[in-house]
């Protein structure tokens, strides 16, 4: 039985170098790469998620933990076939047309990545057509849209409508300061998340 506890702890304390060393040592000792990811790296990150939600950790700490987890994954990745790589799903994220606010959106993207999702970040000021083109190209499970302005919120509706018109099959989630659950319901989005941590939970709920 491998003891994953020290690796979990290294992820929890965000020690990138230590995570790399311990991961390498496990690989050398012949531990299964998938187990290293699931029980060593992701398990550590799960603890981080809970602590953050309880207000016991700060965002930069969480992101450092995510970085240390990613550093471990980098090492074991070449040993696993792409199709076997644990991924919770693919998310396409962008700020809608006319809106240049990207800090919240980027944070949501980072948190989703650290939650085990494969995230494609389109950037800001993304018109509906661009979302559609990107869906065709990347085939995501979820499209996440961000808007910080009351003047750009309605772009979310237009985007969802165009995606539906094109007959593409994805889930839509939305967020940003002026967005609410009522607005999400009104425009037919599958979900709304008030902050980065809860958008990870929302994705898990939608495709888990």
């Amino acid at each position, binding site marked *: 039985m491998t003891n994953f506890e020290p690796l979990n702890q290294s992820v929890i304390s965000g020690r990138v170098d230590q995570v790399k060393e311990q991961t390498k040592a496990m690989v050398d000792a012949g531990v299964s790469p998938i187990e290293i990811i699931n029980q060593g790296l992701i398990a550590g990150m799960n603890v981080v998620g809970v602590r953050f939600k309880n*207000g016991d950790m*700060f*965002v*930069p700490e969480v992101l450092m933990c995510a970085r240390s987890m990613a550093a471990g994954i980098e090492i074991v990745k070449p040993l696993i076939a792409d199709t076997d790589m644990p991924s919770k799903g693919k998310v396409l994220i962008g700020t809608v047309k006319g809106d*240049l606010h990207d*800090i*919240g959106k980027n*944070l949501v993207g980072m948190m989703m990545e650290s939650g085990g999702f494969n995230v494609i970040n389109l950037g800001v000021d993304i018109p509906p057509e661009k979302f559609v083109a990107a869906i065709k190209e990347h085939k995501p499970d979820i499209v996440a849209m961000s808007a910080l302005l*009351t*003047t750009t919120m309605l772009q979310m509706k237009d985007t969802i409508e165009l995606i539906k018109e094109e007959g593409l099959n994805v889930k839509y989630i939305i967020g940003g*300061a*002026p967005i609410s659950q009522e607005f999400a319901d009104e425009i037919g989005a599958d979900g709304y998340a008030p*902050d*980065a941590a809860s958008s990870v939970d929302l994705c898990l709920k939608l495709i888990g």
Partner: protein
Amino acid sequence: MRSNNAHFITPQMRVLSDDQIKSIYFAALEILERTGMKIDCQETLQFLADQGALVGPGNKVRIPAYLVERALKTVPPRVVLCNRDGERKLFLEDNNVYFGCNPDNPDYLDPYTGERRPFTSKDGKDMATVIDYSKNIEFVLNACFSADVPRDVADRVIIRQMMLYMRKPIGFSCTNADSLLDIIDMAAIVAGGYDELRMNPYIFHIQEPISPLSHDGNTMKEIKICAEKGIPLVYYPMPMAGATAPATLAGMLAQNLAEAFTGMVVHQLTKPGAPFITGGVASIMDMKTTRFSYGAPEMSLSVAGLTDILHYLKIPIWGTAATVDAKTVDQQCAAEIAISSLMSGLSGANLVHDTGLMDQATVTCPEVLLLADEIQGMVRRILGGIPVTDETLALDVVDEIGNGGSYISHEHTYKHFRDFWVPSLFDRSVLQKGQTMPSLTERLNTKARYVIENHEVPPLPSDKLKDLLELEKKWLG
């Protein structure tokens, strides 16, 4: 308020030494030369290239120090803003401090119902009345919020409300370059023509870079329009330490300055000597909630640092104070207003904006303006300093009253007691047994309603009003 520092009596504070200022200034020049800026506007990139900047792939431009120095040579050391009657009121120079507020916001705390709801243009009228009444609120900054009118005309509607129902100088952000031109037309009507508006600016425009180190194309268009038409421009970033700027304040200030300089270079090289103001809403990201903190001590400190740097460079300063993280008019709100207003006052930022924004710039109300007005009155008194003259040393009076006498009925007291700050809201009363004092929030609410219902603002002259309403048809139909 005009400062008295010529006589060395305005208390002044510095948070940076001359050497620290120079280090930050040179760091900003290094950022411009080494990392450069991303500017999403081909015309501006070509313009900068023609002036000697290095344009590279990805809309990136590296700006050499001499272009900044050239802009610094032509940027005016002072800008004067006028009120609705064309009187020159705000002298943005030296350490003069003027506080201003944001009348419109996404939400409004209704003083009649206590409810938080979307802001409407009717609320704009009530806010304007309270602003006109508040002595220490000396200008406004409008955005584009009014839920009762179409979104793309909200900018012009709120400005009309300000022009009609208050008399102070008007700053604004707007939807795009076309609405900027409309707003200039509106102001020209009030000022009595375009030349008059240029000579006695009644409006100013604000625009923002996108930290870190990026600038939008529409922004560049608006900078050019302001330069050419002589409309004072405020170009300032909103960096968030630890998110869109280094977590260390010195690095954030250097980046803030580099971003501001980019606008200044484009603006001054387009039209040397055009009125320009800069500063920054430089704060931190709260690392638990990820919110941009408006009430953080780091915000007051950073803005004071920028103020020191801009005094050194002799550029009129856009400050930030009295904007709070508190969600309503409560104890936290008062503390945040007090600390930031005093910090701005002592450091001498010129055009100090954002008074009365709550919950990270998403809600406002009349009560918060009245509270800030009271606190800023105290700040104004402190900035009056302690004049030391024969008259104020009053040695003859001291000798006359002598040991154990009283000053209360002396002529000297009668002559000078009016210098004492008199509260209009804060309580100093003597409470009788069994009596209770209504809370400050209750008194604020009573006063807000009184002012809304009773304060009279002289109407805009009828010919101007007529022209304004006629012009409005262009966007209101």
